[in-house]
């Protein structure tokens, strides 16, 4: 299956309603309105033009589940290395690189955003730290971190908070900071850094915001480099110490130390990737708990049943995937589901649409924890680049769900749903702020 192409398979194109046809013709994922409420646009593409060229973005949007799966299992035709690199600070890349070289200790290309066989070696190195069994061992510690944070929020006694800024963001930062061996108490800084790194693939930066973000990334890199040097001299029990001393095993069995550049990029990726996205998933959890009838009751009813709770979390990730779309680039001309894409074209795999594909998940808007194929969702991507931190992410969301139920009740949105704002980006579907009210349990 690894190199299977999709050239012969063509899905049925459905007739669109006039509104859908108009949306398909005039819509773009660069539109912040569509970014915030994308489902109609996704459906119009899936039904009418499943491999859709978004002119404004200059990217091919892959929207059907089956096509996303096919593309991500062929990392040679569809390159992550080139796709990611094209998307990073798109159109302003040289200036971005130059800034980091001058102010941020160097430009460190993401070692994990690469293609096989190089990618296979780097990935292998990271995998042991993220196995489900390893993550299970962390559960008590993660529970303590999450418990304390929610307890602090509840203890304020105001019965209100910003579920994103006061809970979701600091929660994931505290967990990853502990994993990596960074300093606690830097939540705000790390949150700003995360936003700046993620913005590089969001396709929404002006030159001005790109430079502001580059300054944040330079700060981040300088901080990480100092930490890494410290741990190179005095290793401690954490992932940074592991990474600065890590060796990659080559195909012939010989070993090679990671270069410092590679190590910086991997520490940076681990800090950012596991933090913004998981925070988004937890923010989204508060969103569904406060806006969708029956979900809070459903969560309460499954909270002590591990199997059902796992299914609840998985369905939540399918229903509200934090990562909207990630990049690939064609290395040759290729036909996907009847649409021919030229060589060196930029593509976005729209996971948000794949998880809503009614040919895979009947009644996709129904929150159904009994789905038999729930594991097919693409919230974590798939193929050799499937999210490496998936077990940790699931665990964090699950522990958060448990602690929310244990300590809070009667969660309500404190603003009209229409006033919820989303981060302008094509890469994720992230609520910026979510004021809620609640009662202590």
């Amino acid at each position: 299956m690894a190199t299977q192409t999709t050239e012969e398979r063509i899905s049925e194109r459905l007739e669109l309603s006039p509104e859908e046809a108009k949306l398909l013709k005039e819509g773009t994922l660069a539109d912040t309105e569509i970014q915030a409420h994308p489902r109609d646009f996704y459906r119009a593409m899936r039904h009418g033009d499943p491999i859709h060229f978004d002119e404004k973005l200059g990217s091919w949007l892959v929207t059907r589940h089956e096509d996303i799966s096919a593309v991500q299992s062929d990392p040679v035709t569809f390159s992550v290395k080139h796709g990611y690199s094209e998307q990073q600070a798109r159109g302003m890349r040289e200036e971005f690189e130059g800034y980091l070289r001058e102010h941020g200790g160097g430009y460190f290309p993401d070692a994990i955003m690469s293609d096989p066989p190089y990618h296979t070696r780097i990935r292998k190195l990271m995998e042991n730290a993220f196995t489900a069994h390893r993550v299970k061992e962390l559960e008590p510690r993660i529970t303590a971190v999450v418990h304390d944070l929610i307890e602090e929020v509840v203890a304020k006694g105001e019965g209100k908070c910003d579920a994103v800024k006061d809970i979701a963001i600091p929660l994931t930062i505290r967990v990853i900071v502990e994993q990596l061996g960074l300093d606690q108490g830097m939540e705000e800084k790390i949150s700003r850094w995360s936003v700046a790194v993620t913005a590089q693939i969001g396709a929404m930066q002006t030159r001005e915001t790109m430079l502001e973000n580059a300054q944040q990334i330079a700060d981040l890199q300088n901080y990480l480099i100092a930490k890494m040097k410290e741990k190179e001299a005095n290793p401690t029990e954490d992932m940074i110490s592991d990474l600065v001393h890590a060796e990659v095993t080559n195909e012939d069995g010989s070993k090679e130390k990671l270069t410092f550049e590679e190590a910086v990029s991997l520490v940076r990726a681990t800090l950012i990737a596991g933090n913004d996205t998981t925070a988004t998933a937890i923010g989204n959890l508060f969103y569904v708990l406060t806006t969708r009838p029956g979900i809070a009751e459903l969560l309460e009813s499954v909270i002590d049943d591990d199997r059902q709770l796992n299914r609840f979390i998985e369905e939540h990730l399918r229903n509200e995937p934090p990562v909207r779309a990630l990049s690939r680039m064609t290395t040759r001309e290729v036909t996907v589901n009847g649409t021919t894409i030229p060589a060196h074209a930029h593509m976005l795999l729209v996971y948000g649409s794949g998880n809503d594909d009614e040919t895979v998940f009947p009644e996709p808007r129904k929150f159904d924890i009994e789905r038999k194929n729930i594991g097919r969702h693409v919230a974590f991507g798939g193929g050799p680049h499937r999210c490496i931190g998936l077990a940790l992410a699931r665990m964090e969301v699950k522990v958060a769900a448990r602690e929310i139920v244990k300590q809070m009740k009667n969660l309500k949105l404190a603003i009209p749903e229409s006033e919820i704002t989303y981060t302008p980006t094509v890469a994720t579907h992230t609520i910026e702020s979510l004021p809620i009210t609640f009662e202590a349990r």
Partner: protein
Amino acid sequence: MGNLKVTMTDVNAETQTFDDVEEGISLMELAKQHGVAGIMGDCGGGCACATCHVYVSKDWFEKVGEPDEIEFAMLDMVADVMQDNSRLGCQIKMSPELDGIDVTVAPASSY
């Protein structure tokens, strides 16, 4: 090179037998090395996806044993193709006791 024997039937019903399998290697890694169709091993052996799902033949299932709760949770996410003898290939490490084991690659979860 080892000397253990493994028989695998892939998703296209093609059967291959490997008789030089090393102790310690997982069935997922073995399948990936030989390009056995239907085994993806996306998460790299972390028991965190379910893309190396196999059915262990009845005679051998007793020896490999039941999945633990973490593995069960992953198998449960592909409930439509899960059977009583389902295991994740990444969690079965070859040992002399498993010499001769026979497994069939499970189909992907349905659409």
